[in-house]
């Protein structure tokens, strides 16, 4: 038989071990449920949102009187107050943080990479400092204000808080990677969009080396218009492809310059071109853009022709009107004379000539009245209106 004290002691020991086992099971269960913050990362992420979630989880492990999260700016390495709870504690934490910095507590916690509990400025309350850090980088700092009368945190709780804060740090780092990836994807998509727009532009583009005046690149419209394949286009001298007064000069960038684009078959296409100087990948380049104005030229030519023709029609009308009146008198009188004159008269042939030639002039003015198009024929050193062709 064992003594009663021994039995009582063993029972107490068993109760204690069972109690410890329950705590460990609870701690393991909590550690598992406190896992990572993947869900938060996948959503529209802001550090403040993450810190709010971290605060909720810390609250389940060890409730503090107040919470503050400082976020490290990765470029300046400065700590900035990113989240605090409750809302009226901002000034308190800002003042305490200066105190903690000045006394080396922040540096201590970061160096130790674990949680430390230190007295606050008033020496009455206590603060728990824990870095928010991954294996390689410190992402921030958690500061918890212990409840009134508390001056320490159970070791198990500190262990769990470390898990939560390390997961938070990992989440911040993953977020950075996630942001980089999504930004890279956005940049690639943007690049694709811009390329598609440039390819669809009704503008030919040649990229030129300003030193050699040789073509480096060309967009699809430039290739199609000039009629040379890409590989043949590269290294061509710009002046062989585009003939303008200031081709390829940055001075011409101020406006459009008229010129001619020389195609593979040596045809000259009228174009408006402009040139700008840009750095592409740290390399100074000239971007020469051009617009085919063949259709514009054709329309201008047709408009000029139409204007000219309208002028001719008006002139012809005036000439006919003024000429036909006296012609009527001349021809009519000649005809009248012939009607009343015997063919044997010595003036008969003269009257006949007058009638015939005035009739010819009448036929000419009739042609003038029937002008329907603008046709010319060569005459001495220039061109004159071809009445026959123009009155068809």
């Amino acid at each position, binding site marked *: 038989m064992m003594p009663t004290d021994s039995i009582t002691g063993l029972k107490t020991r068993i109760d204690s071990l069972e109690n410890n086992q329950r705590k460990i099971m609870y701690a393991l269960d909590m550690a598992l449920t406190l896992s990572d913050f993947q869900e938060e990362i996948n959503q529209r992420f802001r550090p403040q949102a993450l810190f709010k979630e971290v605060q909720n989880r810390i609250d389940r492990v060890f409730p503090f009187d107040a919470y503050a999260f400082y976020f490290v700016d990765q470029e300046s390495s400065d700590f900035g107050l990113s989240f605090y709870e409750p809302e009226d504690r901002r000034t308190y934490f800002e003042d305490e943080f200066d105190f903690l910095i000045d006394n080396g507590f922040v540096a201590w916690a970061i160096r130790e990479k674990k949680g430390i509990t230190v007295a606050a400025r008033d020496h009455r309350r206590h603060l728990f400092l824990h870095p928010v850090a991954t294996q390689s980088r410190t992402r921030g700092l958690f500061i918890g204000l212990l409840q009134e009368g508390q001056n320490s945190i159970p070791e198990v709780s500190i262990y769990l808080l470390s898990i939560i804060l390390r997961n938070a740090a990992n989440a911040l780092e993953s977020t950075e990677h996630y942001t980089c990836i999504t930004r890279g994807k956005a940049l690639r998509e943007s690049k694709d969009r811009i390329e598609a727009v440039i390819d669809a532009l009704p503008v030919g583009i040649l990229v030129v080396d300003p030193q050699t005046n040789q073509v480096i690149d060309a967009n699809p419209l430039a290739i199609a218009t000039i009629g040379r394949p890409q590989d043949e286009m590269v290294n061509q001298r710009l002046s062989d492809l585009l003939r303008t007064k200031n081709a390829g000069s940055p001075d011409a960038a101020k406006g459009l310059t008229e010129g001619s684009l020389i195609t593979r078959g040596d045809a000259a296409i009228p174009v408006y071109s402009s040139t700008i100087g840009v750095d592409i990948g740290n390399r100074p380049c000239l971007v020469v853009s051009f617009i085919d104005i063949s259709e514009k030229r054709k329309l201008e030519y047709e408009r000029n022709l139409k204007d000219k023709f309208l002028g001719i029609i008006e002139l012809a009308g005036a000439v*006919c009107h003024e000429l*036909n*009146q006296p012609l*009527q008198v001349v021809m*009519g009188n000649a*005809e009248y004379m012939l*009607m009343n004159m015997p063919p044997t008269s010595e003036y008969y042939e003269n009257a006949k000539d007058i009638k015939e030639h005035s009739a010819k002039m009448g036929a000419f003015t009739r042609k003038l*009245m029937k002008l329907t198009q603008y046709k010319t024929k060569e005459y001495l050193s220039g061109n004159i209106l071809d009445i026959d062709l123009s009155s068809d």
Partner: protein
Amino acid sequence: MPDRKILVVDDEPSIRKLLKMVFTTQGYGVSVAENAEQALQILENNAYPVMFFDVNLPGMNGIDLCQRAKTANPKAIIYAITGYTSDFELTRCREAGFDDYFTKPAAMADLLKAAEDGFEKNRRWESQ
């Protein structure tokens, strides 16, 4: 002979003189007017089976004059004589009621034939 009357309207005196001379020689009774207003005055008291109007008259033009003359005497045969003819003007001549048109310089033989045809046509209508 009174039914073989022709009215000639033209602002050019030489043409009025010429046409009067030619038609008179062929036995027609010819009246002349130098503008539309004068022609309308003549038409108030006289009927002319055949008329020749210059289209481009000062004041009221030959087209408007033709419309007025046709309204007063739909059976009258009226010819247009014009120094310049465009398609647009010809269309307007047809709409105004001109029976035919001649472009200056017109042959006197053609005008005489037109006058004769006009009287013949007028005579047929009168005999119905």
